């Protein structure tokens, strides 16, 4: 019987995995080692600033084990959403680590690098030709937004990765990719069912998170057959169960039955999960429905300013009792002293112990607290203005003579000196849209012989 075995070492490249689990995975002679390196979860900063949200030495450690095993055993290795956000700086960061390791470990292989950047011109053209569509709750895209947006990436489907594999690349480092694509590209190329391959990829991209107990830092094995796939744990402490796999199907998705991706959607309305013993679960019934037009998800971030913050504690019960009014008054005072600060920038108070997490939606925001933590959060068009707004707000709040005050020496307990910190550039997601295009033309392949 035809079987295709995939080893997924970790949920995010750099999150780590036990070597014992990895060795157990290798003992199953996998046909592919694949890993997702990215996510939009950590927010827009990493895409905008060209930085990785994972640590270089942790990524290097994970990659050294994967690269060493893959090249020595002749197993293809595919890495997607390189460097987290998957734009050119992130891709380059990952490729540099791969080159370093190849050199150090004395490995020779053909490396495929697939970029995922999208130019402003491509999106402007798409806008003019009505090929751009906003995703749920995203403001419509305009030429002005595009002009303010920095790096943009498209989430590639399986096709650009298949192109690299067909060109004989033994290791593929891809920019921003649809999470399941790195797992599904090779088996689909060999004729395995797209629905099963992509659904398996959807689960394997989180490695052992879908097991019980779940972990993003442990390996998982997926075995694709003609009409089902099997999930298998690689550590004695975990097992896959129909419930754990079904539960994972809900995770981070707006609809667990219909999962849109590049070029079509996964239809999971007829799936079934079967416990086949030894911690393994067999899944069948997943199908892929190609769409009439090929669309890709585009992500882009724009810089909205620079942040300076101050962190302080408040213990005085008289002050705590009227903290909302006090902060409103401080904001007004700051505005009188320095009108430009609030006209050009924004000032937020995060009041932990009251409603720092949920704001107005906090059901217990009027419950009594004995202590509050406050973060003064100033965002302005340039770093100096952010410093000024933060500093002025901090000093105003520190000495503010609120009604009923009897602690007249200072209102804030600072844990640090300096009290004010620069938190760097601030971005927001400005593009999160679908672009109707084709599967390949946005994703150039370059090949390096290492």
């Amino acid at each position, binding site marked *: 019987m035809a079987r295709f075995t995939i080893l997924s070492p970790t949920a995010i490249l750099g999150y780590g995995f036990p070597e014992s689990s990895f060795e157990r995975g290798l003992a199953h002679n996998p046909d592919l080692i694949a890993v997702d390196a990215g996510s939009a979860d950590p927010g*827009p900063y990493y895409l905008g600033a060209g930085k990785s949200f994972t640590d270089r030495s942790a990524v290097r450690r994970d990659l050294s084990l994967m690269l060493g095993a893959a090249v020595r055993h002749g197993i293809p290795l595919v890495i997607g959403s390189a460097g987290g956000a998957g734009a050119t700086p992130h891709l380059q960061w990952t490729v540099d680590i791969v080159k370093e390791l190849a050199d150090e470990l004395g490995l020779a292989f053909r490396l495929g690098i697939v970029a995922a950047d999208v130019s402003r011109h491509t999106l402007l053209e798409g806008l003019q030709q009505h090929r751009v569509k906003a995703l749920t*709750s995203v403001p419509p895209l305009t030429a002005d937004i595009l002009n303010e947006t920095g790096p943009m990436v498209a989430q590639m489907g399986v096709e650009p990765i298949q192109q690299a594999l067909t060109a004989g690349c033994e290791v593929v480092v891809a920019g921003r990719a649809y999470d399941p694509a790195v797992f599904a590209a090779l088996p689909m190329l060999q004729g395995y069912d797209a629905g099963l391959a992509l659904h398996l990829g959807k689960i394997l991209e989180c490695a052992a998170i879908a097991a019980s107990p779940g972990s993003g830092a442990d390996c998982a094995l997926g075995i694709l057959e003609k009409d089902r796939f099997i999930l298998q744990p690689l550590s004695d402490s975990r097992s896959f169960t*129909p419930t754990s796999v079904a539960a994972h199907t809900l995770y981070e998705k707006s609809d667990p039955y219909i999962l849109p991706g590049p070029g079509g959607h996964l239809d999971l309305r007829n799936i079934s*999960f079967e416990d086949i013993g030894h911690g393994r679960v067999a899944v069948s019934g997943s199908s892929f429905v190609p769409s009439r037009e090929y669309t890709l998800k585009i992500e882009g971030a724009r810089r909205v300013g620079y942040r300076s913050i101050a962190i302080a504690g408040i213990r005085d019960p008289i002050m705590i009792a009227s903290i909302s009014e006090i902060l409103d008054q401080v904001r007004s005072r700051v505005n009188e002293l320095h009108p430009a600060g609030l006209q050009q920038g924004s000032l937020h108070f995060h009041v932990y112990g009251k409603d720092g*997490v949920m704001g107005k939606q906090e059901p217990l925001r009027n419950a009594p607290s004995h202590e509050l933590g406050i973060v003064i959060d100033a965002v302005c068009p340039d770093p100096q203005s952010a410093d000024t707004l933060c500093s002025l707000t901090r000093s105003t709040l520190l000495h503010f003579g609120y009604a009923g005050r009897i602690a007249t020496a200072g209102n804030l307990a600072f844990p640090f000196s300096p009290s004010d910190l620069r938190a760097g550039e601030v971005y927001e997601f400005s593009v999160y849209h679908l672009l109707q295009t084709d599967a390949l033309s946005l994703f150039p392949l370059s090949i390096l012989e290492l």
Partner: protein
Amino acid sequence: MASLQDIALVVRSKNTSPFTYSLDIMFRAARDYEDFKSRGLIDSALIAELYGIGQDKVLDIIFFDPALAIKICLPREISSGAPGDRDVYGAQQHVPLLLWNFPHASD
């Protein structure tokens, strides 16, 4: 009166995109899931009340039998990581649902 804390296996929130998030409830017992589903206890009016938003803001409520789960999709007020955001991953917005006292079948 009881809260979901007493009967649910999972009550959680998480971004489904930088602009939307989802509340997931997974029940321990099929009986409780069926009870909630058949009585229609979770609807857009309830979510609107718990989260202080208009009913039209509730994007979707989906029942997922294989996991004994209910998924509620909501828009984020501020996109993930933009100035004024309070929860970049959207992972701590589940508590109004967790603490909600639901009516017993016999009430």
